[in-house]
């Protein structure tokens, strides 16, 4: 990871320059650089057809006195465009040691977002590459951002940088192979958040039995690894507010560290992807780290349910009936619909113990959500209009888009069981919706409304190609969204 330095707006006279440019001509330091090249920069940009359109790139070598000039189109100057340009720059500069971004045309907030974009894209998971030569590794050590408002930009970058660290934690967790990251080792990684001031409790099998987590234990019982429930609490709300009404916001994450499907085993093709069936839990852990890292002034609780879903002599069978923490019984029709079983126990436990202001669960829950929406939007299900619109707004502002999906009695009927209170699958039709209906049965709004939202991130947790601020692989979808939600909802 390179160092990011916000420096005053003076033009370097050599080295590598990055020019984030809106449509229209060159101004400020870019114009000075052009003069220094004797107008060669302008001519080269013209020859390359570079007009400053959003997403445009021109990579120019040998314009003396510079070794390389990278021009990036912004279209119009927005924070989103700046962030994307930063990401593109980080990818393109992997072969350089140092570079200076001429951000004097950007407001401080946009300059900070540009640095955030670069940082997000510069992340790399190379823990298991033992033979890679130094030649093949990214070399970028220092990225200087030249801006007229260096102090303001640096201040704006500090919380964003903390959020990026949360994103990296999530990406690391999601990328880890399932022989390394299992429920026990995942829980140990959560413990490390204590360094940031987060209270961390780890509950093992004995405690879960005592709490009647029958559904979660059922999923875990086929694995050699015992399940873990990790409860993380960040108590950042100012003291004055704590006396009365301010209830915590609660996040819950599905953490199936590997999902074979269990006895209802999945086909072999693509099964390796199931290492990221803990991306919901990963996002919750990353969001907690982000909030603590930027000392968020809010009380937030994160719960992750960690299990491994394996077929074995002790595994749960299709046909089993389990009793959940809420007391409701579930007929397990398909052992591969295990995420909702884990979340069911967690939802009623979290509501009972913390009486939170709202509960938001994240889970790579269904393939059906990919069929419904593809990979650009995660599915949003909610019993509360206000929470749903806040989540959509937060997602839109950080590029983690949500699409609202329906709930309703007609769908709920699909999970009626002949033998128990419900079954864990409702058939292919509306498969993501019936999964959400299942979860909703563990949110108790009988006495008072309990605002709840479920984010089905199965289509967005992993990217099959590079995006401007997300290298191919684990996206950490949800971390920035949750961070923004807390900022808007509890810190405003």
């Amino acid at each position, binding site marked *: 990871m390179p160092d990011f330095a916000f420096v005053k707006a003076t033009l370097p006279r050599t080295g590598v320059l990055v020019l984030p440019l809106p449509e229209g001509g060159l101004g400020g330091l870019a114009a000075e650089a052009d003069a220094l090249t004797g107008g060669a920069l302008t001519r080269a940009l013209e020859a390359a057809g570079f007009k400053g359109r959003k997403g445009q790139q021109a990579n120019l070598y040998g314009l003396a006195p510079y070794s390389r000039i990278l021009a990036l189109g912004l279209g119009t100057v927005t924070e989103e465009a700046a962030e994307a340009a930063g990401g593109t720059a980080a990818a393109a500069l992997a072969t350089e040691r140092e570079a200076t971004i001429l951000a004097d045309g950007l407001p401080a907030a946009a300059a900070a977002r540009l640095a955030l974009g670069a940082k997000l894209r510069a992340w790399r998971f190379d823990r298991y590459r033992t033979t890679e030569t130094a030649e093949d590794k990214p070399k970028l050590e220092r990225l200087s951002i030249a801006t007229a408002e260096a102090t303001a930009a640096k201040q704006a970058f500090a919380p964003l940088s903390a959020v990026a660290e949360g994103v990296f934690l999530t990406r690391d967790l999601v990328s880890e192979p399932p022989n390394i990251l299992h429920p026990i080792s995942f829980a140990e990684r959560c413990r490390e958040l204590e360094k940031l001031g987060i209270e961390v409790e780890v509950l093992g099998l004995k405690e879960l039995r005592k709490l009647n987590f029958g559904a979660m234990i059922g999923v875990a019982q086929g694995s050699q690894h015992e399940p873990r429930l990790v409860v993380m609490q960040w108590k950042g709300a100012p003291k004055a507010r704590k006396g009365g009404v301010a209830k915590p916001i609660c996040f819950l994450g599905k953490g199936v560290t590997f999902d074979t499907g269990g006895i209802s085993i999945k086909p072999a093709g693509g099964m390796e992807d199931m290492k990221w069936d803990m991306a919901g839990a990963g996002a919750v852990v990353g969001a907690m780290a982000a909030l603590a890292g930027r000392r968020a002034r809010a009380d937030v609780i994160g719960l992750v349910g960690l299990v491994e879903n394996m077929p074995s002599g002790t595994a749960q069978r299709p046909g089993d009936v389990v009793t959940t923490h809420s007391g409701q019984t579930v007929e397990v029709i398909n052992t591969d619909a295990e995420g909702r079983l884990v979340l069911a126990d967690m939802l009623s436990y979290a509501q009972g113990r913390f009486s939170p202001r709202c509960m938001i669960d994240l889970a790579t829950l269904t393939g059906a959500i990919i069929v419904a929406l593809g*990979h*650009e939007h995660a599915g949003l299900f909610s019993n509360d209009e206000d929470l749903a619109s806040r989540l959509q707004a937060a997602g839109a502002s950080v590029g983690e888009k949500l699409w609202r999906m*329906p709930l309703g009695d007609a769908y709920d009927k699909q999970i009626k069981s002949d033998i128990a209170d419900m079954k864990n699958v409702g058939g292919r039709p509306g498969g993501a919706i019936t999964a959400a209906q299942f979860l909703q049965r563990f949110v108790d709004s009988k006495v008072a409304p309990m605002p709840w939202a479920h984010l089905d991130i199965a289509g967005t947790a992993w990217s099959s190609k590079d995006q401007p601020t997300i290298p191919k692989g684990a996206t950490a979808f949800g971390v920035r969204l949750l961070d923004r939600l807390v900022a808007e909802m509890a810190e405003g």
Partner: protein
Amino acid sequence: MLAIRFRRRGAEAACRLEPEPGLPFGQLRERPGATRRIGFGLDAAAGPRAHEQAGAAAAVALTDLREAALEAHGVGPSQAAWLAAGFALGSWRPPGAPGLTRLKRLTVLTDQPGAAEAAWAGIAPGVEGCLLARDLVSLPANQLTTRAFASRLEALAEVGIAVDVWGRKRLARAGLGALLAVGAGAGPASPPRLAILRWRGRIAAPPVAFVGKGLVFDTGGVCIKPARGMAAMRADMAGAAACVGAMLALARRQSAAPAVAVLALAENATGAASYRPGDVLRTGSGRTVEVVDTDAEGRLVLADALHQAIVGHAPRAVIDLATLTGAVVTALGHHRAGLFGNDSALMAAIAAAGEAVGEPVWPLPIGDAHRTDLRSDIADLRHCLPAAGRPLPDASHGAAFLEAFVGATPWAHLDIAGVDTQRAAHAGGPAGATGFGVRLLDRLVAQRFESEDHHPPPGASSLRAASA
């Protein structure tokens, strides 16, 4: 359709149907008395939709009555009309269903027969159109060939609908290569056809256009479907049937709105002349399309029908209905149709109309990734992605494909693959064809397109000026 009349009293009926609060929908209770009396569940305080559902549930459960009187003195005239609508919808049975006694005549007993009659006049056309669509959808493909479908449409001339049917020559002249290709493998009974229905209306405005997918049968073509469940593919013309029913409804109630329906009729057969995966087709718009899977034929015929509807009729809005994808069933199940489009106001109006008549829809996205997924190496675009055992957002891909053929015209696409038929009795009738879409379109037109200047699309005023 069930013959319905509204009277203050009528003692002649052999059986009286009487509301009974608290009885669950679909349950009937014989009551003691000299004449036969049957109680059915109804909460008189409930809204119109609940009245319709109560009537439909009762009528579905009635299996031994041809004629009855309905006791509706306890409900208002408008509720009485909705109750009647429910009985009309619920007493429908698939044509040719053996050994069923169905309700044929119903006398609704109400304090205000005149007012109830007037309310019924606004509802009955939609119901009649819905039942026509159900009849069409129920017919097997050897009876409802494309030729038979087209000749049934000619009967609509009686209600003032102009009917025009294009054969192969006309299709070729218009360059509708996608429709011709999809229909190429079928035998002589089911050649491809484009049927155009026009209702003049009264106002000086461009028409609203309905476009319907009318695959009288879909084997999948060369990419043949599995045998299991293939019989259901006789309903693959439910979109076209819904458009036909909606046109009938508009004509029956003398709608002021000009309307046109463009129906793409074809059979997707496996034959020596069938089109193949890998073929490149030239559509009516001039765009070329690489065929990836011959079982994604609906979007191909719709591409030509949408194009023809837009260039031929310059509509103020175009709405297509199609049993397009299995993906929409995975996404939304059997309780809502998928709604896509390029005009948020039109989409909101469609969603509201659907809720009002019990034909609910839900918006689904067309994203940039869905569009770029359709890039082809050899043609302007491909019509779907190869199935590779991974989940694909095929409903969005289908919509993104159609979007390429509509340009700037306000457009909405309803993927009705999950709601065209129901396996069990549903809120609007017995198991089988639902007629989904007819009443939605009728309501949409009534609310949005029956005045000249209501929500004019961009360019509509210049179109009117040009025609004046």
